[in-house]
């Protein structure tokens, strides 16, 4: 690992300033993606700005929304009584990220800023049309994800919180890569008064995407049977040593039906 200077500011403006003052400075959240990247020398920041003291850890719920601070860990999300009751699909998703030790450190803000094409949270955020709050604006999920490892965040912009509207039903099913435990295909289904949204992660070359054909069918009839006949074209899906685009296309159907059945 290359060396760097380390700071741990205690206010959001101070953190934004530290990141703005030096284009080679990088934010550090749980470090569960970033520290392995640094160890492989894939990134050479001059300075690391630790976000741990910004007061961004915590979950607040009212009867319409759940707001999750960017530094809230996967473990806090999986064990939150409010999230288990109001967005059970999200709690289940968090409980299947990596392993206990990764979940004790890794954060929702870090996962979303990274936007790994096989990360889990992007599917929940897009299916629930959550709002990403940053240090100076709010971004709708529909505008936030812009292709693999790419988001609407500007350089040095910090995610502060993620606001989820409550849904009638939520469910997530993931076909895990047995070695890395990331999603080979993950499907999140959210049923709200406005209709059903289905988001697919792990499969698309451009990262997370909505499955509109399934959304229409499920909005008319929320049952696994309603989507049994719907196939997904394999164009634009990832192919690698783990699964071909055709296999991923097939898995999308299976995971979506399981998610609806479990919702």
């Amino acid at each position, binding site marked *: *690992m290359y060396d*760097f200077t*380390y700071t741990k500011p205690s206010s959001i403006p101070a953190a934004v300033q530290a990141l703005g003052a030096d284009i080679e400075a990088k934010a550090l959240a749980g470090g*569960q993606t970033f520290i392995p990247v640094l*160890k492989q020398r894939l990134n050479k920041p001059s300075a690391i700005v630790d976000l741990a003291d910004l007061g961004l850890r915590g979950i607040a719920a009212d009867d319409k929304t759940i707001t999750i601070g960017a530094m809230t860990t996967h473990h806090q999300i999986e064990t939150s009584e409010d999230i288990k009751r109001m967005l059970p699909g999200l709690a289940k998703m968090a409980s299947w990220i990596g*392993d*206990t030790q990764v979940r004790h450190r890794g954060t929702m803000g870090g996962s979303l800023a990274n936007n790994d094409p096989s990360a889990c949270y992007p599917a929940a955020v897009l299916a629930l049309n959550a709002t990403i709050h940053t240090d100076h604006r709010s971004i709708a999920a529909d505008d936030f994800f812009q292709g693999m490892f790419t988001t609407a965040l500007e350089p040095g912009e910090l995610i502060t919180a993620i606001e989820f509207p409550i849904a009638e039903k939520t469910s997530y099913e993931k076909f895990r890569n047995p070695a890395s435990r990331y999603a080979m295909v993950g499907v999140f289904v959210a049923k709200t008064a406005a209709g059903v949204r289905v988001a697919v992660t792990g499969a698309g070359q451009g990262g997370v995407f909505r499955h509109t054909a399934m959304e229409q069918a499920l909005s008319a009839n929320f049952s696994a049977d309603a989507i049994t006949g719907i196939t997904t074209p394999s164009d634009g899906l990832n192919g690698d040593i783990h699964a071909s685009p055709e296999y991923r296309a097939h898995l999308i159907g299976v995971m979506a039906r399981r998610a609806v059945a479990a919702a």
Partner: protein
Amino acid sequence: MPQVSLTVNGRSHTAEVEGRTLLVELLREGMGLTGTHVGCDTSQCGACVVHIDGESVKSCSILAIQANGCAVTTIEGIAEADGTLHPMQAMFREHHALQCGFCTPGMVMSAIDLVQMHPEGLTEDEIRHGLEGNLCRCTGYHNIVKAIAAAWPIMHGKELPLAAE
């Protein structure tokens, strides 16, 4: 160079570190606590698991300086002062839950956290799911699962409600 002050196995410790120094490097090279192992260095194997403020974490994926002000417990810190093994260590021995022993410190630290997080009981499935961050190349896991199920009643002072095989 930045300074880090932390408590390790109940003793306070201050050291100069580089920004990039990993917690596992401070423990092993800075403090001679070589019970914490480095198996993969890619966050996969769990040989490096320690507790920070009671939570199990991979010490190869944390900067030493991030642990500033924290209480760290390593495998060297869990037995009693007179050498009496922690119940988890005793059950690993009793149930032959190790062969080469390389994964064992991390397994034991993860297992203690797992049992502490589940006062309501633990099924065999939950134990196996709870060990996903720890790889063992020797035992086939079966005896590790047995040892953890056997340590649960000792650690909680009551019978395990849902007996694991």
